[in-house]
């Protein structure tokens, strides 16, 4: 019996290490490429640990080439679209969670809102490109902000609806009885209580917008309007590839994601499965 137990413990620890190695080694490899001189990049056998680090590729990417601008665009688009989605979405979520609407609208609207998120991106990318072209919004940050707001909205509504529903009603009632208006109760009593949930939702939206590729690729093609992922992709598919520059840009693109992911592990599974499984 104990032998079997020991074997399982051993297997457990082994699988843990193998999984960790598989998950992290490729990312680590990219980081080393971004820090290696071109000689070391092409060395054989590949140096995993011992090489002379250099920051030249980072300098090259963000100072000489246009990656600083892409980074700025990515940040502006992510932050603005997240703010818009949060404001619009939180209001709708609150109404759906707290008011009894006629004709079972609470349930029907929620399901309809969720269903808009189910379209494959390419299905809406084609008409959105044509719409933005007609509106002369191609190659603007505004086009991406608009699209990402709509893209994140169903997610915000579903997450926040869950957080509002978890909140006991008595607190708001107390505020309402005290003569506070609905909006007053929402702002002064409810929002502070769901602040952690709001923050988690915001971080999710930021990550989604930061990572998004297809819409950005379709809608922005100029240096002034393209986001970091599109900028990186443009370098990858060019004829001659600057591996160092590309890895440096990609490594920088990871940083905000890592910070966020560590900050809210707890909410992650719930968020990624849209609240379907409690994490």
């Amino acid at each position, binding site marked *: 019996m104990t032998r079997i137990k020991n074997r399982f413990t051993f297997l457990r620890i082994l699988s843990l290490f193998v999984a960790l190695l598989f998950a992290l080694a490729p990312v680590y490899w990219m980081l080393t490429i971004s820090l290696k001189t071109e000689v070391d990049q092409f060395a054989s056998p590949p140096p995993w640990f011992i090489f002379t680090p250099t920051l030249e590729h980072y300098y090259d990417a963000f100072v000489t080439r246009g990656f600083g601008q892409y980074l700025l665009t990515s940040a502006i688009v992510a932050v603005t679209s997240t703010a818009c989605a949060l404001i619009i979405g939180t209001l709708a979520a609150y109404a759906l969670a*707290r008011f009894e609407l006629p004709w079972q609208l609470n349930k029907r609207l929620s399901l309809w809102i969720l269903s808009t998120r189910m379209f494959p991106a390419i299905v809406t990318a084609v008409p*959105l490109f044509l719409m933005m072209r007609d509106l002369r919004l191609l190659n603007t940050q505004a086009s991406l902000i608009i699209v990402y707001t709509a893209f994140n909205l169903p997610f915000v509504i579903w997450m926040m609806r869950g957080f509002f529903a978890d909140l006991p009603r008595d607190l708001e009632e107390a505020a309402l009885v005290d003569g506070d208006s609905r909006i007053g109760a929402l702002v002064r009593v409810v929002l502070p209580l769901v602040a952690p949930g709001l923050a988690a939702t915001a971080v999710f939206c930021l990550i989604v917008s930061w990572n998004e590729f297809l819409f950005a690729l379709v809608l922005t093609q100029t240096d002034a309007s393209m986001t970091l992922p599109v900028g990186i992709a443009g370098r*990858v598919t060019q004829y001659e590839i600057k591996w160092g520059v590309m890895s440096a840009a990609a490594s920088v693109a990871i940083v905000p994601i890592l910070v966020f992911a560590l900050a809210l592990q707890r909410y992650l599974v719930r968020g*990624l499965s849209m609240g379907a499984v409690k994490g």
Partner: protein
Amino acid sequence: MPKSRRFFSAHAKRSLLLPALFIAPAIAVLLTLSIYPLIYSITISLQEETSAGIEWGLGHFARLASDNFFRTAMAHTFVYAAAALTCEFLLGLGLALLLNKQIRGRGLFRASLLVPMMLPTVVVGVVWRLMLNPNFGAINGTLKQFGIDTESLTWTASPRLAMLSVIAVDVWQWTPFVFLVLLAGLQAIPQEPYEAALIDGSSRWQTFRHVTLPLLKPAILIVLLLRTMDLLRVFDQIFILTEGGPGFATETISLYIYRTAFRFFDFGYAAAMSFVLLALTNVISVIYIRFLSHR
């Protein structure tokens, strides 16, 4: 009706204005940016430009039937989705079962496993371009050290290995997600059924088959549903890794639609194809949801 309920519905009856005002912006945004594009897309998929002007009809859809590229892209999509889903599920389930125990450092382990799935897909593409590069990539470099001939292992550049490579990359990125959802599902299972199984003298396998699996079914179905939807629409990683190549070897349906719309500017035909993809994902999700509600 509990007191608080009555209070709220009385309040609500007095004014539907406020909830309407709260919900209206969200509905307006979704109508203009989700529903209107869909209608727009239907319109252009039914219009063909001929010398006589714009003609309405099912021409684009008729063209689908005889388009070999479309059929191949469909086949690629199914192969990709089926292979990646199987690997991700089996690996994810295995890991979740193994690690459904209090282990020291599990938090750190979980955080590290999050890394691949949180990465921008573009970065995933870059990471694996570097790993799989035939000349200086870490995979071939390491294989060479073990004396393996890597001459023919050109991965994403090889017609034979390209599909395998892009599938492996998806498995790398998304197995952690399957693992985390299933682990959460496992931890939500109460202890009592296990104690009962122990008293009945069930074997490990019997316990797994008759206790764990049925109780884990909702989590399994949800994770399979989410993965299937994502796999059928895959675009980003393949675009970065191979651009559908070499030749046509890894062209999935989303890539073919992209190429049709934004390289050949045949928007009507692209729209028609995108509806086939939409119909496909819808049918599959309905099947999953049926299963889920019949548990």
